[in-house]
Each structure stands twice: as C-alpha cells, then as structure tokens.
C-alpha cells in the first residue's frame, strides 16, 4: 500500500470560547489513503472543520503531528498549501468578479502557466456546465453554480490532496450530483486523494472509506459497508394496516431493545439492540397481524447506532401538550393561485394547496424555488401580489394579534439573539408572546427540560452547537403553544442525529393536533411529511403523499426510487418540456 496522503498522529486542538476552553480534537490519529475518496462524518461540533483546517495548515495543533503528502504541516505550511486544494464551507468567491476573473485569480495564485490555462479552463467549464456563464458576476450565480465554481477554482491546478468541507450543504440535488461527478472524475482520472466532510449520509455511504468523528475523537475508520456489518440481522421494517407510520414509530421508539425507529414512507424502519429478537406479537399485542420484515442495514442505520451506542440510549422527546380547537381533518391553510412578484421577477407563480389540521406538510425544493417567499406570505410578513390565502381562516397580513398568537414561526438560520444566554432568549420570547407569571415560569421550565437545554441555560446562544441552536429556536417558537407551526429550513446544516430529534418532536406535535408546515431541501426528509409539494422556480411540480411522488419516478432500472431520484426526474422533465 502506498504511503498515506494525510496522517494525523495524536492531534489535539482546543479553542477558548466565552472564557471556557473547549476541546475540538482530542487525540485524533488517522491515515487517509491516497487515490480514493475518504468521508469525514460526525455530528455538529465533532471537530470536522477543525481537522480540515489543521490539514490545510491554517490552524496549528496544540499537540501531535500532521503530515500531508509527506510534508510536516507545522514545519512547512506553505509547501502544503501549494500541494493541496481546500474548499472551506463558505468558499467565498469574489462576488463582484466574473466567473472568468475568479478562475484567473486562482490560476495566478496557483501558478498555472498561461499556456496550460485554456485547456484546463475548457475542461473545468465543461464539467461544471458553467461555460455559458463565464462573463457573469459570481454573485449572480445560483447557489449550486457558485459551489461548482468554487470547486473549479480549487481544481484549477489539480491538487494532489483535495480537502472539501461540507461542499454540498444547501446545494440543490441536481447540482449535488454534478459536484460528485466532478470529484469522482478527478479521483479516477488524475488519481487525486479526496477528504470530504459531509452531513449527508448517502454521500458518506458512497465513499471508499469513512472516518466517524464524535466529540473530537475517532469512533471508527472503515469502509461504509464494514460500518453496517455488525448490524446484520438487526434491521427490520414494519407496516401495520390501520396505524399511521408516525404513530407506530412513536410506539416502537419507546420499546427497550429498539435502538432506533425511523419513519420511512408508509413504513417504520427499526434497528434493534444486539441480541434483542423483536417479536411483533409482543411489540404490538393489539395487532396480531403485524409483521416484521428483515431488511439489509444501510449506512445511516450504522451511523445512528454507532453514535447511540457511544452516548447511551437517548430518551425519547417528551410529549407536548397543546390545546387545539376544532377536529383533525379541518382545513387550516388554504392557498389559491398565490403569486408574488419582485419587480419583473415572479418568485411564486400562482400556486395552490391545502393543509389539514394535524398534518405535517412539506415544501420541498432547491434554494430559490420560492419556498421561503411562500412562507413569508403565509405568515403575513410579505404581502401577496395575487391570489388568495387563509391561515386558520385569516389572512395574517390583515388580521390582528389574536390570529397571530395561534401560529409559531421558526425562521431560517434560527433568529436568536446570539449575545443573550439560552435563558434570556427564552424569557424574551415568552415576554414577546405575552406570557406572564405562573404560565411563563411553567413554559420556561418546559422548554429547558423538554429540549434538554438545562446544561446550557447560561451559555450565550451564539456559542451553542448548531443542533442546540435549533432546539432553542424550536422551543422559542413553541413558547405560546401555537396550533400552526411554520418551520423554515429547520434542519439546514444540522447533523443527522439532531435532525432525527427534531422530527421526533414534530411528529409528537402533529400527533397532538398541531399543524406543521415545513420547508426543507433534504429530499429524504420528505418521508416524514404526510403530504408535500415539490417546488421549482416558483411553481409546484408535484403534490401528494411521499410514496405517490416517489412512485412516479419508478422505472425498470430503478424500481425503488428515492425522493431525490423523483425530484431530479421532475426537474429534468420540466426542463425537457420547456
């Protein structure tokens, strides 16, 4: 075997945050093998970005030794930086430079000879599909195109080691596939070594090898298949007529011996503890016809099981109590021909949908599909240019505080006060919703306990790990026990573990009769929704139950299409039609 492209040996790194020393990496030793794609996964705050920055030589370790391509990073960071390509989470293109000018800058910085540039540019533009846009300012590109340009800039001189820090966060599924195609082509054709961190487990599953990082320590380094090996015989799917998958999931999640229960379309996927043999008759005595079907374990099962084994069993989220007027099945949101124009630009082009009480309704789509604009109109933050809308019978733009008190809104990127503590944030939102005395004390206690924020109560919100920020924002939006929830990209950038917790809570709320409208660009999260619409460029491409939408993309080659397959098929079908 060839020498490792990147080795870390007993690396430690800590930061001072708000007067406290926080350890980001705590004795990490890994070796990344050359000529293949290695994935770096782990929850938020596991130390993934720190590891990338250490390898790129823009952070120095507190202890330990890092070697990149045989060069000691501490001794000669410049030599390392000349040999690696590094794409940080926010690549930071110069938005006031054109695509070509950005490329030229990086070609200059990387010392690409002028004679060699033409061919390389052509190749990169062909791979990224940016050739028609070389004169466009980078700031005017879509999110996916920006990310592809970022990658092109990183690859302008083929690096021997490519470090990618969550390169696909917030990128639409089509661009995501294109990004991967480019990366894998580099590995295949140029023998490049790639280390990438990702929050998408399906991406990790495609890597040759995966390093699982948790709380600054390495929990494992294996091929993805090897990760799921120990789970053989421990994964099942269950479907019971008459019990909605969500309720079934809630029941199964409480059973001792079941490590993980997950809604997967109309079924529930479970992972059992080692040695636990699930018996449907005992799990669901009231449904003797219930059957468990063994399924092969996938990488996500393995990831979650590994983390849960490490942390001990997570307590299921507490039940939430909401007083809901009316009965399940009432129509609470009605949107008819809704339109929104910004100047000449039609952000939302006459969409219609209805949401019933107690439903989880999803708005799926890439960035710029018009999801957030639709949301803002529904919440009364933005006037509609045309069409009708009613939330609980009101147009929130015109109705008073009373109608607004019935909705909860969780904004994209969690609008929290970064320099207030968790408790101060909660107290502020409680006050803003007009909660007083006894009720206020009760709700604050509920938020701290129910969202397990007690340990962080005096920490500034800005210093919280992303998953905890999300919990805090969710708690704040639920302070006044709203009947209708608007959740705008609640899981963006949040790790899989935190995403599951979030969905478990949302499920519990829906069970209690709360209606939830959720936007997401994680296609697989669509499975948690009762119904959803897929949006692209302000239009609804498809609406229905997750299963129905997936079935539309069914082909002979792909009998079990994922939501992402379905989305891509819809978008491509639309492009072909126009």
């Amino acid at each position, binding site marked *: 075997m060839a020498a490792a492209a990147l080795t870390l040996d007993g690396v430690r790194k800590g930061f001072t945050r708000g007067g406290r020393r926080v350890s980001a990496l705590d004795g990490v030793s890994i070796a990344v093998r050359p000529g293949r794609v290695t994935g770096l996964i782990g929850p938020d705050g596991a130390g993934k970005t720190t590891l990338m*920055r250490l390898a*790129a*030589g*823009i*952070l*120095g370790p507190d202890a330990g030794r890092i070697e990149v391509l045989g060069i000691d990073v501490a001794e000669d*960071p*410049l030599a390392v*930086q*000349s040999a*690696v*390509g*590094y*794409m*940080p*989470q*926010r*690549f*930071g*293109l*110069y*938005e*006031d*430079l054109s695509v070509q*000018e950005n490329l*030229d*800058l*990086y*070609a*200059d*910085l*990387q*010392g*690409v*000879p002028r004679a*060699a540039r033409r061919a390389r540019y052509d190749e990169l533009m062909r791979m990224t599909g940016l050739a028609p846009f070389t004169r466009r300012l980078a700031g005017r590109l879509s999110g996916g195109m920006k990310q592809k340009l*970022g990658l092109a*800039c*990183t690859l302008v*001189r*083929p690096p*021997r080691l490519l*470090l990618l820090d969550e390169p696909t966060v917030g990128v639409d599924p089509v661009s995501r596939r294109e990004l991967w195609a480019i990366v894998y082509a580099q590995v295949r054709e*140029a023998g490049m070594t790639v280390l990438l961190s990702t929050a998408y487990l399906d991406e990790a599953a495609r890597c040759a090898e995966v390093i699982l990082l948790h709380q600054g320590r390495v929990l494992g380094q294996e091929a993805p298949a090897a990760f799921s090996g120990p789970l053989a015989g421990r994964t099942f799917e269950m479907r019971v007529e008459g019990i909605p998958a969500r309720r079934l999931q809630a029941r199964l999640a409480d059973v001792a011996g079941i490590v993980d229960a997950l809604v997967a379309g109309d079924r529930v996927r479970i992972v059992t503890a080692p040695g636990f043999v699930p018996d449907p008759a005992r799990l669901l005595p009231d449904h003797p016809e219930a059957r468990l079907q063994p399924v092969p374990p996938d990488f996500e099962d393995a990831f979650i099981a590994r983390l849960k084994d490490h942390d001990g069993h997570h307590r299921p989220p507490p039940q939430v109590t909401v007083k809901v007027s009316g009965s399940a099945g009432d129509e609470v949101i009605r949107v008819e021909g809704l339109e929104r124009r910004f100047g000449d630009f039609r952000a939302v082009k006459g969409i219609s949908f209805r949401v019933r009480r107690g439903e989880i309704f999803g708005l799926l789509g890439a960035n710029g599909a018009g999801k957030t604009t639709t949301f803002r109109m529904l919440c009364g933050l933005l006037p509609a240019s045309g069409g009708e809308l009613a939330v609980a019978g009101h147009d929130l733009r015109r109705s008073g505080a009373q109608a607004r008190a019935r909705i909860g809104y969780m904004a994209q990127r969690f609008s929290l006060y970064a320099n207030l503590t968790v408790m101060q944030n909660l107290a502020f939102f409680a006050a803003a919703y007009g909660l007083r005395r006894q009720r206020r004390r009760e709700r604050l206690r509920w938020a701290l306990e129910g969202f397990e924020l007690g340990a962080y109560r005096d920490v500034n919100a800005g210093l919280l790990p992303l998953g905890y920020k999300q919990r805090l924002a969710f708690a704040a939006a639920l302070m006044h026990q709203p009947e209708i929830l608007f959740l705008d990209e609640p899981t963006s950038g949040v790790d899989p573990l935190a995403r599951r917790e979030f969905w478990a809570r949302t499920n519990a709320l829906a069970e209690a009769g709360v209606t939830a409208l959720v936007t997401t660009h994680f296609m697989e999260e669509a499975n948690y929704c009762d119904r959803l619409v897929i949006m692209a460029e302000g239009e609804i491409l498809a609406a229905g139950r997750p299963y129905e939408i997936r079935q539309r993309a069914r082909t002979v080659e792909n009998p079990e299409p994922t939501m992402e397959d379905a989305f891509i098929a819809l978008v491509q079908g639309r492009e072909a039609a126009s």
Partner: protein
Amino acid sequence: MKKTSDLSRAARGRMRLRGMIRKESIQIMRDPSSIAIAFVLPVVLLFLFGYGVSLDARAIPLGLVIEQPDAATAGLAGAFERSEYFAPRRFGGIQEARQALAERRIDAILWLRNDFARRLLSGGEAPIAVLANGVDANQARITEGYVQGAWLAWLGRYAAAHGRPLAPPVALHHRVWFNAALISRDFLVPGLVAIIMTLIGSMLTAMVVAREWDRGTMEAMMVTPLRIREVIVGKLVPYFVLGMGGMVFTVVLAVYQFDVPLRGSLWALGAASALFMLVALAVGLLISIVSRNQFVAGQIAIVVTFLPAFILSGFIFDIHSMPQAIQILTHVVPARYFVAILQSLFLAGDVWPVYWANMGAMALMLAVLMALVRRKAHKRLE
C-alpha cells in the same frame, strides 16, 4: 501534474502578485463606494470647506457703547465703521448692549466709558473695555485680535494727528505672512488633502481587507501558495494608486477652482503625499488584520484615523493652543506631520527644515507600522 515546474519560483511569485493586484483593481473599479471616497468626497469636502466653513473675520457684528460722544470717540468709532472686518451697531447703554450680546445679535462689545476722552487728553491711561462672547472661543479670540488691531491703528493715527509721539512700551506692527489676506480657505484646503488620503488609505483599506474575512474569501485564499507578503503588497498597490489619484484630483481642484496658492515644489508635495499614503495604508491594514470584521474595522478606523486627522492634526485647530497633554498626543497622529508639510508647501514654499523634520517623523512611523503589520499578519485563522 508537474505543469507548475516549468515556471521559475520568481515567475510564479510575480504571477501571484499580479493576480492579486488585478483582482483588487477590478474590485475597486466595480465598487462605487471606493470611487466615491476617492473622487466625489474631495469635491464635497472642498466645497464645504472652501465656501461653507470660514474662520475669517468679516463683518463681525460689534456693539459700540460710547457713554460720552466727542471728537476722540468719534474718531475711534469711525475707525471701526470703516473697517471691513466689523459691522458696528451703536447702543445707548451697556445694559442694552449686554442684552444684545446675550441674544447673540452681536459677537462683542466695545465700551468707552464717559471719562475716556478726559483720560486720553490728560495723557493717562484711557481704558477700552472689550466684551466678547466666549461661547465660541475661536471666534472670540479672533474678534479680540481684530479689535486690538483696529484700536492700535487708530491710536497711531491719533498720535500722529496730535503731533505727539506715541510712546507705548511696545510698538505692535501687524504683518501677516504667507496668508496676508487671512483667507482661511487657503489654510484649510491644503489640510483637506490629508483628510481625503486618510479616508482612502485607512478607512477604505481597513474595510476592504476586513470584508475578505467577513465573506470567507480569505480562508480559501490562504490555502494557496500565496505569501503573506504578496497579500500585503497586493492590497497596498491598488489603494496607493487610488489614494494618489484622489490627492492629485484634490490639489488640482484646490489650485484651479479655489485659487489656493501652491508655492512649494510639486515633487516635494508628491513625495510627502506618497510617504503619508503608505503610513495611512499601513494603519488601515493593521486595523483590518486585528479586527477581522468590517463593522468593527470601520468604527476603529474612524476613531483612530479619521477623527484625529480632523481634530488633532492642526488642520483646523492650532496644535499650539491645545492643552499640553493633547499636544503630546498629537505626535502619534501621522496627519499632524503631513498637514504641517502641506501648509508650508502651499502657503510658504519649500521650507526644507520643516519639510525634512516632518518627513523623518512619518518615515519612522511607517517603519514601526510596517513591522507591526508584518508581525500581526500570518496565514493562520487564530
């Protein structure tokens, strides 16, 4: 994979530097705010200081209180009435005049008591009371000076007319040098060059470098073979050119539009401006390296560079009339040295001792600042 090896080390370094400079120049040209600071702001400031702000004594409203009018007082009052510096108004009594002063209808009172003529004729002391409104200390001091000047002129004529040699202990002859007509515009406009260059050099530079941190562009750039030296020079060169452009533009406007004299040599002005520009750029770079945040960098730049250049440089307020402690503080304000050079070049000509002393001070500051920039700037995130 070995494509880079056909370029020499030096060639690759030049390529990187050229790339940085080109990128920075394109950004300047596409950013309306940098062009505005370099070329629109000078126009605004020049018009403001050229036409709006005036420290000159012109038609100072002066209250005259003459308790017993006679030939002697008429002569004195006439001297004030003829002067273009004063617009005197007569008041019947001191109470009435004081009221007018309090209401700011007049800036000062000249009070001749009823025994003025008698004491003057008896050869004794003939006191004149001058009451000035001290709310605006600058204006009060100017008024006081002009009153004294007018009075002395009258006294001289009076003595000559009466054939009596005037024997004051000191004969004060007023002769204002360099700015004979005492036009404050001629004195203010050269200082503006320093203000404008401070804005471009320190504020604009501090903001644009901090912006690279804010937008995350710095992190990607750090993981390239780029040397920190190349980052610094790549930033300095375009803003140096922009700042010098702003300087030339301001000087041309000052000389041709506002008729401010330029008595010193052009090369001396160019050299001093270039040196000051480098100092201002070094301060701007240092601020942005330390703060790494656009908003904070902007605030620090205002407090540390712009306000001192305005207040403590001698641009408007005379350094020698400041309290001792503040005078010492002005020594760390680079604009102080540049304003001194500018004022001497514009109003007096090449005064080499002044020129070289101030150039030396700026050169020393530049050396210290560049050493600090070099030490603080590194390719690390911490």
